[in-house]
């Protein structure tokens, strides 16, 4: 499931020249949130989007979900242009967005019965229960969201999204409001669930380690307004990584340092890189930071550059 199959098969998501503009707050003109965004997501791929707060990540995700319309450009999902929301694309919202008057079971059943209105009551219950068990919430079926912890609420949100068995899951910083410990265990759960189901995932995050652990591909977005895609980082760590062993991987620090370098320095001054003739918004640079050993035996950080 990597870039080499892209040439032959169709990508699951193809984003072409997406731009979003809003009327400027002072009433005259427009502010551009982002402009000329191009990237694609392959089937079964886990893609993370990293960028500073306010650069337009949620706006982008809402367009992918079909909740908002872009000012320019297209989103093509499995060969079809996105014109509205679809049950094939499930969203996990930045704030869990559970209905507080429904139980855990009720929230998930609401989603499942929306997808399969004619499903028999018994099957519906069994189907929901399967996903409640999957996110380890067995026993909390009849609790209301207000009786759950923040992490449990996010897990219900994930179960609700997975229960409709979508082609694509869109996650908007699902774990950012949680403490490190809870976040870690939820990341592990998400990782194992996605590995099992070969789910295509597009996820927004602020957390570099989270992206390195989960993502096959990390998209870097520059600061808004007028944000662009800076580059696409291929995760060079082996797929079998876990939260506990990933720090010992040789490529961990090269990838991590590359991402930090981006967030701290490059995301701000990207205007200069943009001006360079090498930058093509349709094919943002694809890099794969790895450890290189030179002839003298010194190890350093190398960056593999390729064109998408």
């Amino acid at each position: 499931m990597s870039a080499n199959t892209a040439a032959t098969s169709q990508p699951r998501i193809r984003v072409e020249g997406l731009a979003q503009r809003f009327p400027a707050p002072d009433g005259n003109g427009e502010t551009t949130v982002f402009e000329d965004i191009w990237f694609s997501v392959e089937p079964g791929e886990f893609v993370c989007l990293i960028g500073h707060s306010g650069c337009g990540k949620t706006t982008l995700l809402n367009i992918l979900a079909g909740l908002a319309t872009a000012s320019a450009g297209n989103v093509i999902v499995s060969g079809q242009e996105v014109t509205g929301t679809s049950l094939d694309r499930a969203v996990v919202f930045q704030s869990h967005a559970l209905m507080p008057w429904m139980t855990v079971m009720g929230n998930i059943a609401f989603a499942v019965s929306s997808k399969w209105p004619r499903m028999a009551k018994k099957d519906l219950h069994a189907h929901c229960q399967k996903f409640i068990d999957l996110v380890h919430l067995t026993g909390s079926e009849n609790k209301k969201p207000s009786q759950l912890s923040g992490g449990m609420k996010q897990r219900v949100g994930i179960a609700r999204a997975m229960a409709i068995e979508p082609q694509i899951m869109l996650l908007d910083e699902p774990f950012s409001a949680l403490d490190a410990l809870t976040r870690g265990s939820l990341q592990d759960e998400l990782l194992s669930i996605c590995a099992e189901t070969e789910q295509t995932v597009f996820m927004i995050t602020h957390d570099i380690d989270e992206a390195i652990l989960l993502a096959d591909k990390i998209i870097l977005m520059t600061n808004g307004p007028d944000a662009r895609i800076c580059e696409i980082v291929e995760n060079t760590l082996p797929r079998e990584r876990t939260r506990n062993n990933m720090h010992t991987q040789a490529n961990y620090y090269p990838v991590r340092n590359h991402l930090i370098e981006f967030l701290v320095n490059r995301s701000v001054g990207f205007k200069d890189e943009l001006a360079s003739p090498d930058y093509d918004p349709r094919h943002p640079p694809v890099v794969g930071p790895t450890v290189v050993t030179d002839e003298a035996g010194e190890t350093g950080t190398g960056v593999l550059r390729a064109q998408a």
Partner: protein
Amino acid sequence: MKSMSLKTRSIVLSIALLFAFAGLWQLMLPEGTGSAANMDPAYAALMGATAKGASAMPGPLEVAKQIWEHVLNPFYDAGPNDKGIGIQLGYSILRVLVGFSFAIIVAIPLGFLIGMSPLFYRALDPFIQILKPVSPLAWMPLALYTIKDSIISSVFVIFICSVWPMLTNTAFGVASVRKEWLNVAKTLEVGHLRTAFRVILPAAAPTIMTGMRISIGIAWLVIVAAEMLVGGTGIGYFVWNEWNNLSITNVIASIFFIGLIGMVLDMILSALTRFVTYAE
């Protein structure tokens, strides 16, 4: 005292206050006042027997006795001017419930429309703003003239006074449903009707119920005045009739029953509100 719970202490205090009030009432009663001597002669003639020395103002015991009599025999019917207080209260409650139900039928769908559509909100707002502060009784002559039926007219007055709090609260509740819940419904491709019933209605239900609670309170205030105007039956008519009979005892007893029913109606609505309220 310390060992008693707050609840028992409050009950003890309530009973003590009741007795203090009754005692004060008894003490304040003028003895043999109202003598025709120092009264305007025309007024004395109007007051009849009372003016000849008997106190028109009953004591608390008399009123309590009267209330007890009503409780023992609430539903007797001895002609148009002599019906049990239960029957009269029943008429009033029935009118309130009918007017209130019509108000629900109109206010909730209309409130949904206003709450969901900024166009309708703006278009209907001036009408609502002008009509809302009108005293419901101001509608009475118009209602009597057009409907030509005093009972339906009083029901209409109840309808018109109940409709505004429900309408504005429904519109507000619907308009302030969290965007993210609507987005959830949208990503799940839930139809309009199902979204209205499964998402918007439960989300706005506490606000809507609060509006209903305000409405039933106002309706119960207004029905007494409306029945005083149109006469015939109902607790409002009963109060006015007893005033004409100069039975202050019955007037006070009615005040007690009006308050009691008002309290019960409010308790029912408050229980329903609690039932639909959700914790976030």
